[in-house]
């Protein structure tokens, strides 16, 4: 640990100017990051963590002003420094890894030139060995065939590879500190783990300081030497990960921990796996942990009163009636590559599963595994190339749109992105009752009553009936979407990544609502997700999908307790927080 900290903040206060009023985002933050040290800042969206990161690098938008305090870089106060001075620090002293790799590279410029540009800027001018350095740097960050990659364009690379390019760019100037703002939140879990491992290794080799900004306590706990929890612009707690996890002092830290179902649920899972008592132990404990008491929402008070263990999750799984059966499903996409001759992409191959009434089947897989395709085929939005789909005993895979319409009253979908699932111009009432109006089932007062009933079913206040979607939070909007899906009283509900777009705390409450609705209405779910913690807290049976092929399928206890395939084990291991908990 060198004497002078690379970056030091002293009681920093930042605010944004909107017209006349000024909203302060950071209210007096002090921290120090020394060379070779990895620090993580955790907080929910809106806690000011990204503003802090941008302030250090000097990338704040015009509307932001530094209200007070100081930013000291390598002992030098740069708070009021000139733009030219701040610019010289960027790249040479402060490296920055932006948030979403899919949009953080210039789409019309080759990878090699974008990395080369950073090298040229750091070295002060072009030099002979530039191309060699670029290839060497790409290799260091773990890209395969770096020479080829240098000539490609961003859209020709996967998300993970683009993140590695961004890391290469940050490392180009051999900085003293790298600030990574949500480095991997847009990537799959397994890819996320490999990238963070690699980043840690590079940082250690070069004795660089690393400041990670994340909303995921698991990631922070796994990777950082020191964790700072931020809430509403202030640091409410800081310390070593294990101290914070075991004895959180600040109330919102406790809430963050509880909300991170993955952390607690799987903690027990790992323990169970360790002691080999098998699925029964898991089934008993996982459910209970998922719905610990939460502050705030009226729903959670209702949930507390609930029988902790969902009735349908009793020990023996009743051999119930099959509501949906899929046999040997296959889907190929014909596409034409650059030179024009036909190629076919195999999205799904030999997929079979069944969903029992009142139960939840979860389909787990990473992006590109074909889970969404399976969902769209079951919903009748796409035709399968091979295989058949049965609903309540009747084949539905080759029905025409018109023939499928009556079935809409019995099969419904809740979409992933709550922000786009509701028509911006429709009030909540109009959105919720639209299926009833489309089928012409109800009118006038009867429709009004249904609206109020559905809204109440998802624990939303009647007053929000007249509100527009833009006036609701993400969680509230997803509840409206669920209410709409239930309007026709379906027997089978497809859930396409229902909570992945929401904050951790909100996720837990929505999952609780879904479980409660299943118990109360007996509706079956098919949940598609990439997040094992979500699957763990809701599903009865789980199917692991990889590259369109079924890796493993069975009751959740067995699959998560004794995973049969290595891939499942890798998935489970990659879930953030699991490793740290094992050590604690």
């Amino acid at each position, binding site marked *: 640990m060198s004497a002078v900290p690379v970056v030091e903040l002293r009681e920093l206060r930042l605010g944004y100017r909107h017209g006349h009023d000024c909203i302060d985002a950071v209210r007096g933050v002090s921290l120090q990051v020394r060379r070779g040290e990895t620090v993580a800042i955790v907080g929910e969206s809106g806690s000011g963590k990204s503003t802090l990161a941008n302030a250090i690098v000097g*990338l704040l938008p015009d509307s932001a002003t530094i209200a007070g305090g100081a930013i000291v870089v390598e002992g030098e106060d740069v708070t009021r420094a000139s733009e030219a001075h701040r610019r010289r620090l*960027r790249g040479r002293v402060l490296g920055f890894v*932006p948030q979403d790799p899919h949009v953080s590279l*210039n789409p019309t*410029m080759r990878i090699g030139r974008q990395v080369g540009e950073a090298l040229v800027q*750091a070295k002060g001018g072009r030099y002979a060995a530039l191309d060699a350095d670029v290839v060497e740097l790409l290799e260091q960050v773990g890209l395969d065939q770096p020479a080829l990659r240098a000539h490609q364009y961003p859209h020709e690379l996967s998300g993970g590879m683009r993140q590695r390019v961004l890391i290469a*760019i940050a490392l180009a100037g051999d900085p003293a500190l790298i600030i990574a703002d949500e480095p991997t939140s847009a990537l799959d879990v397994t890819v996320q783990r490999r990238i963070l491992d690699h980043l840690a290794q590079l940082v250690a080799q070069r004795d660089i300081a690393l400041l990670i900004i994340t909303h995921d306590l698991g990631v922070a706990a796994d990777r950082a030497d020191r964790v700072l929890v931020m809430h509403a612009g202030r640091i409410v707690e800081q310390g070593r990960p294990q101290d914070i996890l075991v004895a959180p002092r600040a109330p919102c830290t406790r809430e963050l921990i509880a909300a991170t179902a993955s952390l607690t649920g799987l903690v027990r899972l790992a323990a169970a796996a360790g002691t080999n008592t098998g699925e029964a132990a898991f089934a008993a404990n996982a459910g209970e942990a998922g719905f610990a008491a939460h502050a705030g929402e009226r729903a959670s008070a209702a949930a507390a009163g609930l029988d902790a263990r969902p009735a349908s999750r009793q020990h023996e799984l009743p051999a119930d009636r099959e509501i949906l059966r899929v046999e040997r499903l296959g889907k190929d*996409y014909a596409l034409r*590559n650059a030179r024009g001759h036909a190629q076919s992409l195999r999205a799904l191959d030999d997929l079979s599963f069944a969903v029992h009434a009142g139960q939840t089947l979860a389909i787990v897989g990473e992006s590109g595994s074909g889970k969404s395709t399976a969902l769209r085929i079951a919903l009748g939005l796409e035709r399968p190339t091979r295989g058949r789909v049965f609903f309540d005993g009747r084949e539905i895979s080759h029905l025409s749109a018109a023939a499928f319409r009556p079935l809409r009253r019995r099969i419904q979908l809740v979409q992933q992105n709550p922000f786009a699932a509701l028509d911006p111009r429709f009030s909540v009432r109009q959105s919720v009752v639209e299926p009833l109006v489309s089928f012409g089932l109800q009118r006038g007062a009867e429709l009004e009553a249904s609206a109020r009933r559905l809204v109440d079913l998802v624990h939303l206040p009647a007053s929000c009936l007249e509100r527009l979607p833009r006036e609701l939070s993400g969680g509230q909007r997803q509840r409206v979407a669920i209410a709409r899906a239930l309007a026709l009283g379906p027997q089978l509900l497809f859930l396409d990544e229902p909570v992945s777009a929401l904050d951790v705390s909100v996720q837990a409450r929505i999952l609780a609502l879904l479980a409660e609705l299943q118990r109360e209405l007996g509706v079956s779910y098919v949940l598609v997700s990439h997040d094992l913690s979500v699957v763990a807290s809701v599903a009865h049976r789980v199917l692991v999908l990889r590259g369109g092929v079924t890796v493993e399928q069975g009751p959740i206890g067995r699959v998560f307790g004794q995973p049969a395939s290595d891939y499942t084990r890798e998935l489970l291991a990659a879930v953030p927080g699991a490793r740290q908990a094992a050590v604690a």
Partner: protein
Amino acid sequence: MTRYVGGRIAQALLVLWGAYTVTYAILYLLPGDPLALMLTASGVEIDTLSPAQVAQARAYYGLDQGALRQYFALLWNILHGDLGQSLSRNAPVRQLLEERLPQTLQLAGLAVVLSIVGGTGFAWFTATLRSPRVRNLLRRAPAIGFSIPVFWMGLLLIQLFAFDLGWLPSTGNAGWRSLVLPAVTLAIPSAAAYAQVLGRSFHDVWREPHIATAFAKGLTRGAVQRRHVLRNAALPALTLVGLQVGHTVSGAVIVETVFARVGIGRLAQEAVLRQDIPVVLAVVVISAAAFVVVNLGVDLLYPALDPRVAHAPKVT
């Protein structure tokens, strides 16, 4: 790649043939008989001639074929480069066009160059401005550009630069000096359009996340503007270049009238008044061809500028 180019060329020809057909259909619908017009041109009313004389005159001017036969005859001739005989000008249309096309090409060419340079320059200057207040003020300036009636602008420029200051000739075709005022008049609306589209796309690209990455490398604001913003912002403006061809030809009709320049714009306007079908048809087909060629160029240029569009295999 060749399949894509072949497809685009086939579509371009289809559009050109469509333009020819629509113009012929409208022209053929014009009430009033071109022959009556021709006779008035030589100072005699049609009703003073005997039927035999009328038939003789109709044959002399080639108006005796039926509409449909005339359509295919004209089409066949055009394909062979023979644009037919102008009804009112005693000269083959081809010769008329050869006389006048250079004038209009000079005018349109200079106008397009001025508008692109002017529009891009203005947008670039506005984008690099530091203070948001001035930037907002100037962002509205291009709107003045296309609010000004072209003919009014022409008269204003004549009044200002030809009469008051006497720097430039007000009309005529002689030399480059007589080209300046008309080209500026014709360029202003297009320049305004470029400035507005480019200004808006600069504004959008500045807020893209990859710009933050560029800044994080330590680049100056100017370097970011040059290397990253310009290329991405130029794409929407590129499609505008294609559309502006139509406006330039339309503008030429008015500008050539105000500045008394002899070009195909004015030729077309008078031909419409004289219902000189072959001349109007030729001018419209030529401007449609120019539009189609320029747009084809833009279509083929687009993948070079934006790699994402380079006919990547689309998942059906």
